[in-house]
């Protein structure tokens, strides 16, 4: 049986990949995908602990997260399309309206 630490390590790796993707990439599509990566890292973490502890609560949570992620992707893609229509690009550098 694969020990818990492996799962946790993979989950950590995926999360760091997601964070770095969100921080460094300029394409909004890529940023959304990176967010999905982070959510899935969290799912993996939950499921690993669920299995380790024999508690189904973690798996139920991950199902919730998948549902929330689906909604988040839908809204995010809608924003992306709106942004493209407005600006003609999906580059985050072009959407800097909140500059003070």
């Amino acid at each position, binding site marked *: 049986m694969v020990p818990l630490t492996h799962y946790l390590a993979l989950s950590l790796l995926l999360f760091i990949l997601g964070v770095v993707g969100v*921080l460094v990439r300029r394409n909004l599509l890529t*940023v959304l995908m990176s967010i999905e990566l982070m959510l899935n890292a969290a799912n993996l973490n939950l499921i690993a602990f669920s299995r380790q502890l024999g508690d189904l609560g973690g798996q139920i949570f991950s199902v919730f997260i998948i549902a929330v992620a689906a909604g988040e992707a839908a809204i995010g893609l809608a924003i992306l399309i709106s942004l493209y229509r407005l600006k003609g690009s999906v580059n985050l550098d072009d959407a800097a309206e909140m500059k003070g």
Partner: protein
Amino acid sequence: MRATSLLPWIPLFPLAGFLVNGFFYLISHSKLGGKDAPKGPHGGGHGSDASGHGPAQGASAHAAHTAAQTGHGSGHGGPGGHGPIPFAALHSVVGTVSCGLSLLFALLAIGSWWGETHGHEGLVATLWTWVPMGSNPTWFGAKALSIDVAFRLDALSALMLFFVTFVGTLIHVYSVGYMGHDAGYGRYFSYLNLFMFAMLTLVLGANLPILFVGWEGVGLCSYLLIGYFWDKDFAADAGKKAFVVNRIGDLGFMLGIFGCAALFGTTDFGAMFDMASKNPAVYGAGGLMTAVAVALFVGACGKSAQIPLYVWLPDAMAGPTPVSALIHAATMVTAGVYMVARCNVFYRISHEWALKTLGEGATVWGLLTHDAAFVVAVVGCATAVVAATMGLAQTDIKKVLAYSTVSQLGYMFLGCGVLAFSGGMFHVFTHAWFKACLFLGSGSVIHALGGEQEMTKMGGLRKLIPHTFVTMFVATLAIAGVPGLAGFFSKDAILAETFAAGHPVLWFFAVLTAGMTAFYMFRLMRMTFWGTFRGTPEQLHHVHESPPSMTIPLWILAFGSLLVGWIGIPAFILGGENPFERFLEPAIPPLPPDWTPHPHHLSLGTEWGLMGASVAIAFLGIALAWRFFSGPYPFSVPERVATALPGLYRWVRDKYYVDEFYERVFVEGLGKRFGRFLWEVDARVVDGVGVNGTSWLTLQISRISSWFDLAFVDGAVNGIADTLQAGFRGYRRLHTGRTENYALTMAAGVFGAVCLWIILR
């Protein structure tokens, strides 16, 4: 039916007539696009017009002549080319019937009143409370005062009511003929009905303010009807003159009303006279009653054309002749006498107080300043004499009658002034008949001659217009004081009372006036009806008797002039009492035989002697006029007098230049100077200090306010904003607007928080 429930209807009928006539006149007027505004004398252009006024009458009279007046008014156009007068039949019917209903109800009311009280007391019909002032008796220190809209029927108002409605109805009927083809027919009748309403309100008013409402109402109608031919300057000016002069009198009247309200705390006739006659010493003290009575008399002077306010009445002849007869001879101008007679208690108290204060050594000046009744007597007598002399040299037939009216009004006031109020009222009553007859007769003459008013262009009309001649002759005999006719008895009553009151000087002038009256009236008759015709042949050809709608009222009034005097036959002739005085006793209490100031009693011989003197002077006047104005025109004797004394003749003919004097002193001098002064005040004080000063002050204040606003209010706002901006400039840089920066911050924050949690755990 009770008299009190009939009373309110009496003035309401003419009011309804006014509304209906006015409504239909306005409808037709707007439909025709303003055709009234009479285009001058409607075809009366040739109503030759030496005197410079009178074409107005020419207008209606001539139009009426051409269109063979019958009163239904379905006229063919007059010479001026006017079409039929719209609603003429309706105006005639509504105008006369509303007035006739007033007469009917007045007679019914007088009948029920007599049945209920036998004339001993007044009945009051209170309709509603008009001014409910004074639930708190100490309201601003004033006494409680409550004014009702109420009508009073007693002997005095019954007398007035009877002849006002009777003569009024006759003159409405006459007007149907006289005004028949005037384009303003409906306007004329609505004004005339409004006048009847106001006059009846005046007569029936149960307190001074209601009387005043009627008083102002008749003043308004007088103004409207004098200026009836308002496209003529002289008519419009005469209307304005009447209105302004009357306002001067009305100021006095109002002061009198205020004085009554202050003295008695009420203005109701019954209550006031009751209080005054019970405590004459209290109310007379200090001359308060004199002041009130004189103020009321000033009002009477304006309305009844007494010196110095008589000047409007001769000019008022610019109105249509029936108006002169109704308003400016028979009814409205006697309202002043009526009011003074109504307030007879005041004058009596004033007289008693004056005699008590002055004692034995009463001088004329002392009486003038203390005794309101004496003031009335002197003013009345002076007016009677002065106006009679003015009438001597007038050549305009209506002007002679106008000055005669002023003079006769003076007579009435003389009667009131010597405390012979019933004598004064008797003359009011008889005068209404013969003067209305004379005016309507003169209207008939003017009508016959196509608008001619100059007596120098008349003559020899006796045979041509016999009805007019006979009726006018009867009325002339009556006014001249021929024994047996109306004027004789009333004039004699005043003369006898004046003598009895111990005023031989006033008596002398009054007798002189009687002689002059007889003289100028017979001069008028001689110049108009005797001799040869002096007008143009065209006029002679046109001369015609007036239609029955005009001659029937003339005959009725002539019969009145013949007979009404007998109701006031003096006590000493038949024995017993004077029936007229007895009738008025409840309203005008007679002086007791042992009256303290001085008994008004004459011996039988003196009475007959005085009567003989007045008859003698009347016949002397008649004889002189008969002699002077015979033979061919110009008459030799008057002509000789005029050439011998040219200055005196001009002075009398031009009415002593009183109008010019008033014009110079009051209008040009005081009036215009005062106007200029007011203009200066307006320009300098009101505009300069008031308006411009206020605007300057406002500008300065707004400057300060603006500076304050900029410096402090805006400064505070901007200052706070600037401070905040400067203080937080550095923090702006944190907001790059880049999502990844925010994400990085968040991630760093989470990382830091976790690290902190691990370390601190």
